[in-house]
Each structure stands twice: as C-alpha cells, then as structure tokens.
C-alpha cells in the first residue's frame, strides 16, 4: 500500500476526523449515542453508505453532467440509505435498533460527511481510493460515536451494550448524561483532548 493510500485511510480517523476536526455530522452524534448498540449500528450504517456511495459516484464521475451533479449524488446517497434502512428492518436482531434509531437512519442522507466526501474526494479520484476514503471517514465518525456512547451508556444507564457494569455496585444512573446536551459536553472534551495532542489544530 502506498503512502498516499495510507494517508487516505488514516487521516479521517484522527488528524482529519470528520466530527472533531471538520465538525460535520454533529447532529446525529448527539442523537444516537445513548447506547453503544445504537451507536455501533449507526456507525456501521454510515460506513456502508459513505463507502459505497463514494465508490458508485467515483465510477460515474466522468459521466455525471456538471450542472446536476449534486442531484445525482443525492439520488445515489438516498438510494444507499434506503437500502440500509430496508435491510435493518428485515432482520429480527436489527429491527428493534432500527426502531430506536428511527429517523436518524433516514437522516444519514443529510449527513454532511457523506456529501462532503463525495464532493471533495470521490468526484476527483479513482474508485478504489474513493471507496477507502468513504469507509475511513465513516469509521472516523463511528469512532467518535462509540467513544461518546461508551461514556453516555456507562454513566447514564450504568451498562455497556446492555450488560450491567456499574449498577451492581449501587451506581445511580445519571439522567443528565442521557440528555443530548451531555453529548455536546463530551464532544467538547474529545475535541479538547485531540487539540492538546495535535498542537497544529490550535488557533493562534
């Protein structure tokens, strides 16, 4: 694997993370991070949508008429999101999670990360790097989602993946953690940690 491809994959995970650095996809990261299970399904959904949409649009990139390029992108992204939603609804194991995530699966269409990566990367690059870029950005998004969900489920419900961790020691679940504002506070903390490690992100 050459250095450029490696950069394509690793950059979105940390240095150019879509949530903490590009500050995209904040909305859903507040909504779906109450439980780890929900966050995991959401993360996987975004990875699939982002990766395959990038792949398809990169394959089509030389044929897409410039004036309707955003519409074509939207059609493809919407198609992928509906497919993911339909598949989640079809399996017993994921049906309940799909219900819990409700509108947020559908709202992946409007997730700026997906459109942002297609517009910025997939339309100007070959299919394979585009696919990797989409997957990596989805993964970068998912990583933050899981970190936030880890703390919110642990402190808010005393469980992890629904398994009791803290409650058996008499922990009283904290309701504030369940509410969306706490996700924003956590997100702020993550950005703080990242910027103190990665000094070049700090504004002068």
């Amino acid at each position, binding site marked *: 694997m050459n250095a450029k491809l490696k950069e394509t994959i690793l950059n979105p995970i940390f240095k150019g993370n879509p949530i903490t650095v590009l500050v995209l996809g904040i909305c859903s990261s507040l909504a779906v991070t109450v439980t780890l299970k929900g966050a995991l399904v959401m993360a996987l959904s975004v990875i699939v949508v982002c990766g395959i949409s990038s792949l398809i649009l990169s394959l089509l990139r030389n044929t*897409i008429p*410039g004036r309707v390029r955003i519409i074509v992108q939207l059609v*493809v992204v919407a198609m992928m999101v509906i497919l993911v939603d*339909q598949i989640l*609804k079809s399996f017993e194991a994921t049906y309940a999670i799909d219900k819990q995530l409700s509108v947020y699966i559908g709202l992946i269409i409007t997730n700026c990360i997906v459109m942002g990566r297609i517009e910025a990367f997939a339309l100007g690059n070959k299919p394979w790097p585009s696919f990797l870029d989409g997957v990596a950005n989805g993964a970068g998004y998912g990583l933050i989602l899981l970190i936030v969900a880890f703390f919110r489920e642990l402190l808010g419900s005393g469980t992890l993946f629904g398994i009791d961790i803290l409650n058996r020691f008499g922990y009283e679940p904290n309701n504030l953690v*369940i509410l*969306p504002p706490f996700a924003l506070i956590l997100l702020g903390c993550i950005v703080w940690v990242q910027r103190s490690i990665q000094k070049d992100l700090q504004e002068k």
Partner: protein
Amino acid sequence: MNTNNNVYTVLYTALIVVVVAALLAFVSQSLKGRQDANEKAETISQMLTAAQFGTKAEFQKMGNAAVLEKYASEIDKAYTVNVAGEKVADLSLDEVFSPKLLKRQNYNIKGGANATGEPELPVFEFKDGTTVVPIYGAGLWGPVWGYVAFEKGSSTIKGAYFDHESETAGLGAKIKDDPAFQAAFAGKQAAFDKAPVFQIVKGAEGTLADNQIDAITGATMTSQGLDAAINTWFAAYAKYFLGNVSQPERNECKCPSCPCEDCPCDCHCTPGQDGCHCPGCECPDCNGNMKHKEE
C-alpha cells in the same frame, strides 16, 4: 463527450432515477415478507405489553417466534366492530392491526376524502378477559399510536402502550419511553358516555379526575395529539363498550320463579324443568351456578 448539453443532462438524470427506483422497488418487494413478520411481532408485543402480560423489554428478549406463541396461547378471540358497536367480522390469529392498518381505519373514523368505507375497529379479547383496543392519531412530527387494555367487562383501564414514529427524543418520545406515563393509565376510567371520553391534561396528582392523566412536561403538542387520538378512537368504540359494559354477566333472570340468585349468565327457563340453566351448561338444573359445568 460533452456532458453539459441539455439532452444529455435530462437523459442522464432520467436514467439514473429509473435505475434507482427499479432497484429500490425490487429490494422493497423482496424484503417485504421479513419486514411484515417483524412488524407483526412488534405489534403483538405492544398489545401484550398493554395487557400486562409482561414488559416490552421482556418481549424484545423473547424473539419473534416466542412472542407469537405467547399471543396464540393468551388470545381468546379477535374481531372487528363498527361504530354502532356491532360485530362485523372475526379476525384470524394473523390479523393484528399494525400502524398501517390503523392509519386506514383512522381515516374511516374521521370520514372525509381519505375514507375508504365504514370503520372496522378491531377488538382483541384475551383469555383472562382483558380487552385490548388500538388508538391512532397524529403527534407533533408524525403518527402516534398505541394499544389500551381494559379490565374484563369494564371501562377500567388495565394498561396501555404507546408508540410513535418521530416524536422528539426525551420529550414527546416519553409516551413510549417513560414507563411512568404508561403506568398512569392503569386504574383510570374511560368515560364512554361522556365527551371527551378521556383527557390528558396539565394537572397535579390528586386533582385529576378518573378519566384524566397528567400530560408530559415539555411535550404539549405530543400530549394533545395523543389525547385527540385516544378520544377519536374511544368515541368510535363508545357504543361497543357501552353495550358490553352496561350488560354485565348478571342479567336479570326472565324466569318467573327463578331460584338462582346473582345468576352469572343469561339464564333460560327450560320447559318441563324447574329452575334455570345457563346456555352452554349441560346440566338441566345448575341454577346458574357455573361451577356445575366443571363438575
């Protein structure tokens, strides 16, 4: 190739839309069976939750097959009634009213351009006498629906379960997520002879009437939507319930010299025999005592 001329642009977009639509239609059709099965199990688990056979979380853990089994073992009969309270048709074990069907009946109850006919309102009677009826209406962002269980032969609410499509998490979504809100329905009365039949109001514990419960703070629109949904449907069921509730099992005996006291059923005089017997009871002179039947 010039990708910017008009004909190309129009053809290209048309083609991509047709391809995507065909693909989605195909996927939707091929997955429909699975999705319907999931939805059916979900609907049943909501009804069973309302009827207090368990909690929603328990049913979720059980899995679809076990939920269907539980339903089959607990259900006594299911049928539809019209607004006059008359029975229309029997429902098979497979016919549970999912939100999609409720939506259609909701149009029928309200009448207007979307109505497709007379309302057919489902009633689910369980073996322990619990009667479950659905409700459906509009919340703030999308539909809200639910299932309300009544005690045997009465207008006392035993339990309720509500669900929604897209109410605000942490506020309107509490109709589903807050166990305290659903628990508040238990023990309340639906006043089928009054209007409104039931009310979700802003009020404190202690000041609430028998047919009132406290609304959700911060979710006024959802509370009002649910209130409207409950009243629309309960009003449609009113005649059915009034017919059933005002005729408790202790019917007045029509025999001139009926020996049974507190006859638990419609007692009938049998010519040539003294006393009365209950329909379905084989012994000629049980005097309305249903225990005879078991003996």
